């Protein structure tokens, strides 16, 4: 798959319309790499000129900052901002709500001012404008439930864009008992992804997965690579991996051939 980096674009004298911020999960996690490639497919289909930072991209620093390590956060954030500003990046799309929140809300105080959108917002506008269309009917007749990520939902008040995207499908959408502003966390945020749960009765991802399974949905739609990991693990813990799948909303719009 061909994806240009900012360095390549600039060398060719081009300035892309959009920077795709891939993030650590989108770059290194096997499952999330599929979402990165899906977004590239979407951007190409909509003929949007874009680039990635490639090896010049670093973690935004979100997990370090939320763990309490401001030094590591500042080191990464300041270097990222230097890179982004050198390339005169104006608009950024990301598949990760944590990257989204940090880039959008926290980089301005450090001198990084960009228009930042999450891919669910991009998908919504592309679908609404007819620049992309739903492809495939692999999931025909399947029931979908949508899991709100905390960093898109409560942290930034984006509840409807991902749901609007799913409305473009013919599938039945069911809500979990706790949704939108009351949506339950998957358990990964605040650097929990990199540690064991504290002692308790249950893992958070299992609690949330049980709620998703209670809806009777065949598909759990997510918008965050960490929710993806947590919900996938939860489905496995409940031994439902044969009947219930976890997908990013982008994968439901441009479906892979079976």
């Amino acid at each position, binding site marked *: *798959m*061909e*994806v240009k*980096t900012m360095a390549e674009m600039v060398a060719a004298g081009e300035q892309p319309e959009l920077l795709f911020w*891939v993030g*650590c999960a989108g*770059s*290194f*996690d096997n499952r999330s790499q599929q979402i990165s*490639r*899906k977004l590239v*497919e979407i951007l190409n289909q909509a003929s949007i000129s874009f680039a990635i930072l490639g*090896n010049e*991209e*670093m*973690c935004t620093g979100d997990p*370090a*900052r*939320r*763990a*309490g*390590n*401001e*030094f*590591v956060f*500042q*080191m*990464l954030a*300041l*270097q990222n901002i*230097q890179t982004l500003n050198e390339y005169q990046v104006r608009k950024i799309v990301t598949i990760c709500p944590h990257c989204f*929140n940090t880039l*959008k*809300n*926290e980089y301005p*105080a*450090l001198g990084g001012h960009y228009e930042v959108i999450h891919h669910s917002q991009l998908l919504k506008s592309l679908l609404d404008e007819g620049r992309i269309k739903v492809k495939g009917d692999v999931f025909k007749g399947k029931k979908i439930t949508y899991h709100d990520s*905390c960093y898109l939902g*409560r*942290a*930034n*008040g984006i509840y409807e864009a991902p749901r609007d995207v799913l409305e473009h499908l013919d599938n039945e959408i069911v809500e979990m008992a706790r949704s939108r502003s*009351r949506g339950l*966390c998957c*358990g*990964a*945020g605040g*650097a929990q992804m*990199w*540690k064991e*749960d*504290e*002692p*308790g009765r*249950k893992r*958070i991802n*299992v*609690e*949330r997965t049980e709620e998703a399974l209670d809806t009777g949905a065949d598909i759990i739609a997510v918008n965050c690579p960490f929710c993806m990991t947590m919900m996938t693990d939860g489905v496995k813990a409940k031994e439902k991996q044969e009947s219930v799948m976890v997908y990013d909303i982008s994968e439901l719009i441009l479906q*892979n051939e079976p």
Partner: protein
Amino acid sequence: MNIGQIIFILLFISVVYISVRLYTRIWRNIHLGKKERLRDQPGRRLKNVLLVAFGQKKMFKRFIPAIFHFFIYAAFLLTQIELLEILVDGFSGNHRSFAVSLGGFYTFVIGLIEILSALALIATVVFIIRRVVLRISRFQHPEMEGWPSKDALIILVLEFLLIFGIFTMNSADVVLQSRDIAGYPDTGNLPISGWLGPWLMGGAGTDFLIGAERFGWWLHMLVVFGFIIYLPISKHLHIFLAFPNTYFARLEPPGQMRNMEDIMNEVKSMLGMTEDAGSVDLAEELPNFGAADVTDLSWKNILDAYSCTECGRCTDECPANITGKKLSPRKIMMDVRDRATEIGHALDRNPEISIEHFDDGKNLFDRITPEEIHACTTCNACVEACPVLINPLDIILQMRRYEILTLASGPAEWTPMFNSMENTGAVWQVPDERIAWTKQDS
């Protein structure tokens, strides 16, 4: 001047004296926190006060408790008019000073207060049942054992007595009016005591009625005075503090953490990003980062703590708490409040010590364990749940900062993550290049 007037005036002066002392202490305790300017965008702030505090917008996410709470709230707001009359009567020795001059409007206001008081009475009974009989789960957490649960019941019983006082007073008054006894001006037809009075006390002797009316009046007034003095040591300060607390609530997106400029500048100079490198003064002693005690927090965090009425909606929505972890956002708020009160008491006992030199060898970590702050997923559910815009997450994150930056401790599992981020710029230590994902097709 009669003996009742003298007792009233003495009581009034004592209550004013005691409450000035108690409330200035609360003010002082809140300002144990660091300065933070929260006065920008007054329009948005005022809107929060009107919608969230006056309008109870967030309460109505849970309809049943919200509607009963609304009865008590509305009764409380309107009773202030009647309270004003009680004060005027108490000082002047008159009876129902406003009745004659206000005429029909008086009947309307007192009537409305009666209806709201009856609804508040129902609500009080419902709330006692919810706590004592139904034992609603959010009132049964470990942090609610002992005093906090008693405190809640004391307030409900006081509310009950207050309303009982109002109806005793009005009912006896209505019957006295019907007997044309001098000194009882016509209140018009009151919707509840208009029938309750004749029904309960219609056959009673006039002396009994005069006594019952006075009993109701004094009970009402004494409960109000008691309430004013009791509030500063109870969880019930929210009836006042909800208003400033919603006004001063932070307006940034909830996902945004506050920047630490000292560290930003230090890292900038380390990375050679400052124009004149070396201009940043590195202090001789390493400064404290984050919060170990309430004095490290913002005054707004402490205002949050005193505004908390321990309803537990935050804890009820907390994913860590729901799955049995020790973290309870409500407990974080109670611990901050109790620690501020503790420091306040110590300062009152030793007035020669200034807060800058205060050290009792204790801090917030004596109350809040690392296990609690490590369990947080920063999901903002507690922040979203609070009906008066309290932010427990902000305190948890400031304590995490202290743990990592000042104590250099924290969960051991985070160390490889920090190292990887610092050394490779990726959150995981991986052998692949960052662009490796582009080398495959779908």
